[in-house]
């Protein structure tokens, strides 16, 4: 047995053992995740040196190169960290043993998906993954809050439909060319290739959550607890979706051979960035807000990959990694807050920073990273994406200012949105009932703190560590150096600035804040009425003339693919039931004897009367005879 099988099989077996004896201990789950991580590191180290392929039972064909090795490592890391977190977080949850088992299975199957070396293997793993995800979502369908059933059905419908299209695209390739491996660089110039490329991208978009297939993420956020959100939409699905998008764009196909498809990706990317961040601004619920940001960040990755410029693609890939890190950190910290307060409404929270210092620090670092504040990692990858977009002008693609504008605007709005979120959860007025809240215990804060630390590390040491070590070797092209940003220098300068500020704060005149009573119309305002929550910060945006309509549409669900589908189906249903029946009735009642039977027949096809059936059947044979003999 090589590391390939062990990587996937061990978590499955140990997870099952853990499931069997879970009334005693949880160690087996840990052990599964740790062994999975161990073998992932081994495969990663092998992949640095050499590309390995391996066939198992003539069915599964695994192969690992630098790109998949690196994605594999992080999937495995996230599985481990979030499992540690959820064991504590869901300690009192009724069905936790099934949950942990499925969780481990998803991690293992996710690893298998990344390792897939040909189309069939990918189809198999992708399909299993979908059913596992539906299982784990199905758990929370009733366990948590209202509207669970709808959220479940909606997410699974969207994911199922788009996976169906993805597999259709892969199947189209399969019947046209046979069982392909993934590094052929087919040109995108004939119908089959283009059609299958588009079909596969749809699957990737739904998995990663790009508009218009994003709506399952905010919906499921109402139902799934924080660790599930941090694992599935925020890290695993991002890694898988964007990995596959990259894989098909520059390994299986060569996106640079088709100008239109490149723009298709970039337009989707830009729209996703802007639309999702605008939706995020007005959310009043922490989890939902975070999930809209998750959607928005996908836009950068799609945009970067769509540029076709090496630096942009590297930026997209780096952003995928960064986003997985800070976004799962954000979900986890939000979960830590919810763990004590049992509250996810923004307006109800506030002032928790002194109670939960570690949580606050992790949250702050991640929030700054997602907003693209130097020297954190989010800034870096966004910067690379911008550069890629700017380089587009060399190719004569004059749409680039639009892409650039939406990307930058998105970044600014993200910052704005996280200012509000940080303010209203950790700063601001603290409600009375939260005064006794303590910091969460180690196994809860450790994963998020580690992720925040990674954000910081990948920001400060961006060039030596992640970029030169992980990103550049993973890509199949040479990437030009860019030298005018020195993260270490910038970091030192910023730290100096902070120290200077702190010194001024210590010794300066701003030390004391004068507190005064507030009067409104001569009345003294009571303490609790002074509470000012952050969720109203951006509500005027909603009333801006142009955006107003857009928000209305958005709130009604008009950007929502699922709603369109249900509308179409119920429309058809109505059409068949009412309109067609009615018209048929009108027509047939006019004609004499025949029409009477016909009308009664088609009004209620299944009339319950045998002679009617027989009559239709005899008309059927007459029609068959006419068609076939004449």
């Amino acid at each position: 047995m090589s590391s390939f099988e062990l990587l996937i099989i061990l978590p499955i077996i140990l997870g099952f053992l853990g499931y069997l004896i879970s009334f005693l201990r949880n160690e087996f789950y840990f052990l599964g995740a740790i062994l999975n991580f161990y073998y992932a590191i081994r495969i990663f180290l092998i992949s640095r040196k050499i590309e390995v392929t391996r066939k198992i039972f003539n069915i599964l064909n695994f192969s690992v190169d630098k790109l998949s090795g690196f994605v594999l490592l992080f999937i495995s890391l996230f599985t481990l960290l979030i499992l540690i977190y959820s064991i504590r977080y869901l300690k009192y949850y009724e069905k936790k043993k099934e949950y942990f088992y499925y969780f481990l299975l998803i991690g293992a199957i996710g690893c298998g998906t990344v390792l897939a070396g040909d189309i069939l293997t990918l189809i198999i793993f992708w399909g299993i993954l979908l059913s596992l995800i539906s299982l784990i979502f199905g758990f929370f369908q009733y366990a948590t809050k209202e509207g669970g059933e709808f959220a479940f059905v909606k997410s699974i419908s969207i994911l199922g439909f788009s996976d169906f299209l993805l597999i259709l695209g892969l199947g189209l390739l399969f019947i046209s060319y046979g069982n392909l491996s993934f590094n052929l660089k087919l040109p995108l110039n004939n119908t089959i290739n283009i059609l299958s490329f588009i079909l596969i991208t749809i699957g990737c978009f739904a998995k990663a959550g790009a508009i218009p297939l994003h709506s399952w993420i905010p919906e499921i956020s109402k139902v799934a607890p924080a660790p599930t959100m941090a694992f599935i939409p925020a890290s695993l699905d991002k890694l898988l979706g964007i990995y596959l998008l990259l894989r098909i764009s520059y390994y299986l196909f060569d996106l640079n051979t088709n100008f239109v498809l490149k723009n298709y990706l970039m337009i989707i990317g830009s729209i996703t960035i802007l639309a999702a961040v605008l939706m995020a601004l007005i959310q009043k619920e922490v989890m939902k807000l975070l999930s809209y940001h998750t959607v928005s960040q996908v836009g950068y990755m799609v945009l970067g990959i769509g540029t076709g410029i090496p630096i942009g693609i590297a930026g997209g890939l780096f952003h995928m990694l960064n986003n997985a890190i800070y976004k799962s950190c954000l979900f986890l910290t939000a979960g830590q807050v919810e763990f004590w307060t049992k509250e996810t409404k923004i307006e109800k929270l506030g002032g928790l920073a002194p109670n939960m210092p570690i949580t606050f620090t992790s949250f702050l670092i991640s929030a700054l990273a997602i907003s693209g504040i130097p020297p954190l990692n989010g800034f870096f990858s966004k910067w690379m994406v911008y550069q890629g977009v700017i380089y587009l002008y060399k190719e004569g693609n004059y749409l680039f200012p639009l892409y650039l504008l939406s990307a930058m605007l998105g970044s600014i709005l993200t910052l704005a949105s996280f200012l509000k979120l940080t303010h209203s959860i950790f700063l601001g007025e603290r409600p009375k009932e939260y005064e006794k809240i303590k910091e969460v215990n180690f196994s809860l804060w450790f994963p998020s703190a580690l992720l925040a630390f990674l954000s910081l590390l990948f920001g400060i040491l961006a060039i030596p560590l992640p970029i030169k070590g992980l990103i550049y070797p993973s890509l199949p092209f040479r990437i030009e150096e860019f030298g005018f940003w020195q993260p270490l220098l910038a970091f030192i300068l910023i730290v100096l600035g902070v120290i200077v500020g702190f010194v001024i704060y210590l010794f300066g005149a701003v030390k004391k804040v004068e507190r005064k009573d507030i009067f409104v119309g001569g009345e003294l305002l009571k303490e609790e009425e002074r509470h000012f929550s952050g969720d109203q910060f951006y509500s005027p945006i909603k009333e801006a003339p142009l955006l107003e309509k857009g928000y209305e549409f958005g709130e009604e669900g008009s950007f929502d693919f699922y709603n369109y589908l249900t509308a179409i189906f119920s429309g058809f249903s109505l059409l068949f039931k009412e309109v067609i029946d009615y018209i048929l009735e009108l027509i047939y009642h006019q004609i004499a004897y025949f029409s009477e039977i016909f009308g009664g027949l088609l009004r209620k096809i299944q009339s319950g009367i045998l002679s009617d059936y027989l009559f239709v059947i005899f008309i059927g044979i007459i029609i068959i005879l006419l068609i076939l003999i004449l």
Partner: protein
Amino acid sequence: MLPYLGCIILFLIGIYAILTKRNLIKIAIGFCLLEYSVNLFFAFIGYKKDALAPIYANLSQARNFVDPIPQALVLTAIVIGLGTTALLLSVALRIYEKYKTFDIKEIKRLKE
């Protein structure tokens, strides 16, 4: 040609009965007529003019025989028909016990 015409007439009568009669027993009779017409048709196929029955001991010269296979087949078909008719009639009687009517238009609990 005439026997074949008789076949077709029998067939049409059967279809008429099945399509227009409301009484379960009459429908069953119509069904039997249909069956007879098909069986009759099958039997006619084997018939040849001035031919002998295909039973011979010593054959000295070439003779015309009727085809024996259709008769064998028709026998089987008749037996099958007997089975279906019996089942049909027994179900019809049971329906009468439950619904107290033989009218097919009254027997419409299953619809839509």
